[in-house]
């Protein structure tokens, strides 16, 4: 930054210049091998062949394909995607409720005092935690890819992939919600000798039901998006359709599907918001 002092002589007025320059130099040294590893070759973008392929593809985006036959296929795929997300979340709840209840500290009898089978419950809790980590640690699309090999192409693999990943995710959040609220009623019940399930139903559920439901609905919204993505490896729904159209370089179809995808995500957002409002 050049300024002119009162004597009219220009001078550089950046007090932080040297440290900033060092920072840039050091980052470039670190960045260089990374750029090599990522095969960072921007000039590929200017390769005339590539431009032609992409250009021909993108030109077809407008106008989107609006043939009645194709729209019908897209509609069926969209409903399939919504059904996949709903069924997936329903199965995920079946996985998450027992796991979450097992993990949650606020239902732990062994934390109140040394019980008879303290080590056993500690072991069960460890296994449950490991299972939860394993289920949600592997991305849903990897599960989908594996399950497609078992169940074949189609929505079954997608539903199960969502059930597995979101089961792990929900169980973590369920256990956290159960721990974050008022845990005194549950503890009082446990101390006076009630079973864990009774303590959950009468001590924890009344005060946390709304939050649990609200979070589950939010996850359904995410599952809609996830089931589109899972479709890319052949797990049915809108994603599978988009993958097929892309492989055939049919730009018009891809742009129709993209538009439908945007509308679907917007719709899911609003449905989830509506339900969560009702719960308040």
């Amino acid at each position, binding site marked *: 930054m050049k300024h002119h002092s009162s004597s009219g002589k220009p001078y550089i007025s950046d007090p932080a210049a040297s440290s900033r320059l060092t920072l840039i130099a050091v980052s470039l040294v670190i960045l260089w091998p990374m750029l090599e590893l990522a095969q960072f070759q921007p000039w590929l973008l200017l390769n005339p062949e*590539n431009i032609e392929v992409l250009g021909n593809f993108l030109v077809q985006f407008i106008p989107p394909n609006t043939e009645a036959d194709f729209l019908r296929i897209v509609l069926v795929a969209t409903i399939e995607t*919504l059904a996949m997300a709903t069924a997936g979340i329903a199965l995920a709840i079946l996985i998450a409720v027992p796991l979450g209840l097992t993990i949650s500290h606020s239902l732990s009898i062994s934390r109140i005092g040394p019980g008879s089978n303290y080590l056993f419950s500690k072991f069960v809790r460890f296994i449950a935690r490991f299972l939860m980590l394993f289920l949600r640690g592997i991305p849903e699309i990897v599960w989908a890819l594996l399950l497609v090999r078992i169940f074949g192409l189609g929505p079954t693999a997608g539903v199960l992939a969502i059930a597995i990943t979101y089961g792990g995710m929900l169980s973590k959040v369920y256990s956290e919600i159960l721990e974050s609220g008022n845990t005194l009623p549950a503890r009082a019940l446990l101390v006076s000798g009630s079973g864990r399930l009774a303590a959950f139903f009468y001590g924890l559920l009344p005060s946390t039901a709304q939050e649990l439901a609200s979070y589950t609905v939010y996850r359904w919204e995410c599952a809609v998006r996830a089931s589109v993505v899972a479709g890319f490896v052949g797990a049915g729904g809108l994603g599978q359709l988009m993958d097929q159209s892309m492989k055939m370089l049919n730009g018009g179809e891809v742009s129709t599907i993209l538009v439908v995808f945007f509308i679907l995500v917007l719709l899911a957002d609003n449905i989830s918001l509506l339900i969560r409002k009702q719960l308040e």
Partner: protein
Amino acid sequence: MSTLTDLKMARQFCLKCLVVFFIIICLTVWSFAYLGLNPIRFFSFYADSNIAPFIARFFSPDLSTPYLLKIGSGILETLSISAIATLLASIISIGLALPTAGRFGPTAKSMTRFLCNFLRSVPELVWAAIIVLAVGLGPFAGTLALTLHTAGVLGRLFGETLENHPTANNTALINSGAGRVAAFLYGTLPGIYPQLLSYSLYRWEMNIRMATILGFVGAGGLGQMLFYELALLREPKASTVIITMLFLVMVVDAISNKLRAAQLHSMG
């Protein structure tokens, strides 16, 4: 530990909730019916078919040294893709943040807002599939795909940060004769810089996760290795890749939890 004073009345019976609940149950049952899924059938399917050997092959991961070295370079590739994409995206996003925050007038504001929303609404995997056409298979496609999506997300977040930041310093510099660029660099940037950095690191974390799976459409990294091994029916090798992915996600999770805890700690 909550005290008795913040005890809330538990929810009472409400008809509306029951109706909503009933509708949801109906739609869920309909979903299973529509997809032709019978949860009970999964188990019989499990017993009938010969998938047990398929799953069993995953329990003997390939741990030979040459393959582990290959996995190592896969991890480095994944990390490089995510790091470069995040860096590029944050640089682009600083450029996008100025118009998004309304510094160049309302027209530019709504236009860049639309651009950001568009960039982030298209899933990374779709960007990757399109960009593979433009630059061919390989990690560069993954890098560009992540860059585009992340630029949309960060552009919006950066813009909001900039909008909420007080303009006093900036105005003071401009009033004392600094140029607009200098005023931004020295009056505004130092104030919002920590927030931008924390957003970028958060996105980097997500991008590492994303970079592991972008390979499914041919965009490099561990995902491409997994796709390839599964296509060649080499389950032991695929199993190694999956374990690596799990490991990578867990390490990133642990580091980010530690950092977050440290940050919360330093903030008091």
